[in-house]
């Protein structure tokens, strides 16, 4: 997989991600992309309910959240997380990317939307955008800030 210039937190630590998708395969693929961005998977969840408890447990820098999942869908989970943690950065990652869905997700607190199949270079740019000034792009040698 292509390697990207590492995106780090301002304190030089790796960006920590919570990956939420009912597909183990999709979670693993996203995990590989996160590693190629210099990030770290802090937790995983296969449904919206688990995502909420995992968020509380891991307090990640970014959540990558699928929409169509059993038990509780991603948009509702995002809304609940943002209600408890207004600064939560949630990026919806779904194959179902019609306008109503995107608008609903953004209205309920998601920061961005990436349509599957995920292109690593697209996700990388979205991550940098969503982290904004809270992140720095380190040199490829991993110099931190």
């Amino acid at each position: 997989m292509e390697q990207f210039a590492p995106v780090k937190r301002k304190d030089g630590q790796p960006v920590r991600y919570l990956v939420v998708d009912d597909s183990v395969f999709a979670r693993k693929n996203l995990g590989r992309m996160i590693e190629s961005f210099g990030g770290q998977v802090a937790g995983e969840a296969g449904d919206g309910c688990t995502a909420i408890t995992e968020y509380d447990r891991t307090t990640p820098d970014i959540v990558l959240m699928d929409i169509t999942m059993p038990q509780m869908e991603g948009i509702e989970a995002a809304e609940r997380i943002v209600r408890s943690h207004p600064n939560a950065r949630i990026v919806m990652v779904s194959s179902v990317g019609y306008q109503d869905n995107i608008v609903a997700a953004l209205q309920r607190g998601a920061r961005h939307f990436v349509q599957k199949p995920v292109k690593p270079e697209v996700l990388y740019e979205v991550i940098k955008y969503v982290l904004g000034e809270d992140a720095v792009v380190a040199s490829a040698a991993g110099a931190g800030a």
Partner: protein
Amino acid sequence: MRMELIQPFINAADAVLADSLQCPTSIGNFSMEEEAYRRRGVAALIAVSGDIEGRIIFDVDPQTAMRVASRMAGQELPSSPDLMCETVCELANQVIGNAVTSLNDQGFHFRVHPPEVHTSEHGDKSSEDTEALVMCIETCSGKVFMNVALRYNRRRQPEQVAAVTD
């Protein structure tokens, strides 16, 4: 089954497979399935509900499933039945999600249900209002079969149907 319903699935399958596998794809034979569905290998079923309802099945042989998994992961993966099922489910999810996105933006309202591994050897026989279209997509990793059986929801308002078929 109306072509305006099918075309987004064909386009999505073509685009998602080509993108995920990073190779050209071609749409092979189309046929209307008159007999009951018979599973070929590892199959995932996704139900859709809303203005149009029905199901789509993705079906690939186990070797193809493993080749697809490795290509999507960008590295060679060890063969396992769970991984095969996961791969076919995720592929189905992506194709159907993209097709439904296109149909929703045309004014249809759908809900996609999470994919399920289809373990039965046989499925329901097509009926007059739920014909199944089977198509084969040729990829660099092998053949992917997509079986689409959809119908207009009878509860849908007639004027909505008229609007989208104009």
